[in-house]
């Protein structure tokens, strides 16, 4: 579980995150949604310590992350896996070497065991056939899957995903979503996904928080998103034609049902 208490972030006097309070639960996919520039990626970077918040607290279970010494931060980060927007694979290493990298740095396993673990992680993301390829030789979707395999190599307690579906076709996006949900359940991780893709929200968003202009506007589950009574959230959700039409269809159906009754 990750708790955020009164988190605020300013850049050159401009408020980017304003007093965010929320809890990300274990074993479910927690989603942070919002428009581009709303502050969701800044929130994610504050969570993993790539940006220091101006004020507020972040707790990883019983460990207070904000104000931790750098040595302790590095120790805590060994429990964290992260999927970056651009995958951030190491160009000079093969797919297998990328997944083996965290094991080589921090695992006490011998070489054979490390390789076995990396192969297991690649098998988990259905990439057993790509072990000897370099990142430049694989597609965007495959890169994301390798990044997921690398992120879970050390069996982390927390998984963070920054726009996991950006630049992917709908089918591959769905595969990535399902993969994130499956590994969250399998490994019992606290997963936080930043996205502006409503399909992902509907697919896997067990716990959803909506951020608008740095303020947490709404929090709920994927089942509540479509019928939420929040104008800004509705503006965001129904900006997509598809969801607008779904809502219109639902309204027509409910009207017809009412008439029948």
């Amino acid at each position, binding site marked *: 579980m990750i708790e955020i208490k009164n988190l605020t972030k300013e850049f050159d006097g401009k408020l980017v995150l304003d007093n965010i309070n929320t809890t990300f639960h274990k074993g479910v996919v927690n989603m942070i949604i919002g428009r581009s520039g709303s502050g969701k990626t800044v929130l994610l970077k504050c969570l993993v310590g790539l940006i220091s918040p101006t004020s507020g607290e972040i707790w990883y279970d019983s460990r207070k992350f904000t104000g931790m010494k750098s040595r302790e931060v590095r120790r805590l980060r060994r429990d964290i896996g992260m999927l970056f927007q651009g995958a951030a694979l190491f160009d000079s290493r093969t797919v297998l070497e990328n997944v083996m990298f965290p094991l080589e740095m*921090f695992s006490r396993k011998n070489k054979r065991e490390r390789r076995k673990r990396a192969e297991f992680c690649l098998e988990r993301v259905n990439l057993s056939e790509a072990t000897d390829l370099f990142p430049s030789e694989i597609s965007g979707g495959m890169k994301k899957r390798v990044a997921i395999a690398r992120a879970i190599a050390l069996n982390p307690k927390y998984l963070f995903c920054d726009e996991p579906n950006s630049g992917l076709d709908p089918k591959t996006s769905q595969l990535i979503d399902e993969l994130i949900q499956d590994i969250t359940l399998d490994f019992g991780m606290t997963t936080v996904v930043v996205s502006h893709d409503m399909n992902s929200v509907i697919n896997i968003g067990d716990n959803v928080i909506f951020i608008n202009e740095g303020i947490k506007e709404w929090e709920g589950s994927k089942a509540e998103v479509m019928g939420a009574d929040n104008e800004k959230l509705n503006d965001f959700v129904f900006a997509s034609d598809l969801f607008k039409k779904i809502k219109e269809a639902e309204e027509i159906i409910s009207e017809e049902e009412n008439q029948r009754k």
Partner: protein
Amino acid sequence: MNFIRSLEDIGEYALLMRRVLSVPDRMREFMKEFMKGVYTLGVNSIWIVIIISFFIGAVIVLQIALNIDSPLLPRFTVGVVSREIILLEFSSTIMCLILSGKVGSNVASEIGTMRITEQIDALDIMGVNSANYLILPKIASFVAFMPVLVIFSMFMGLFGGYIICMVLGTPSIETYVYGIQAFFRESFIWYSILKSMLFGFIIASVAAYFGYTAKGGALEVGAASTNSVVINSVLILVTDLLFTQLALG
């Protein structure tokens, strides 16, 4: 504002070096990166060192032979003066100025690209000391390989002069060889090697600093690479002046 920015850069560089100069998390990984650095930064620079040293050595001997044409000076003076120039300044300082272009831009662009493609963030998130993991092996390998490059450079510079004497015949090869052996001080070689190792540290660390702190996209990586070469050149020249005064003055 530029002055304040420069002070900030010095502070940031010092803080980065504090993170770089610590014990590696995994010695095995450090050694792997160290050997890679020896090859990419050192071995790959041998050819440019050989070619430049040969031609500059030849030109130095040619210039001195043409300009020191006095009956008051013995002809072996050409060998003595050429040797001192090559040993004391060319093989260390001028060679390092050239290497700051090749190696400095290589290091800055490699680390800069890793920065903008979030590879350094990925290392940090894993709990790796990214500065230490990426920069220390580069500095260590380049500094360690520097004496090899300097010795190659000295040898090829003197060899270039030898070939010029063979082609032109003035001074004769025997006179030139006598000249490069006359009044020889071994300490000059140590002085040159030591100086080049110091320059090696400056080149690799300053270039790594510019790459590590790059922000934005490809243009900024290019700018970081250019800035690293410019700053390195200035630092090498200033350090050369101070080091020469301290060591030989």
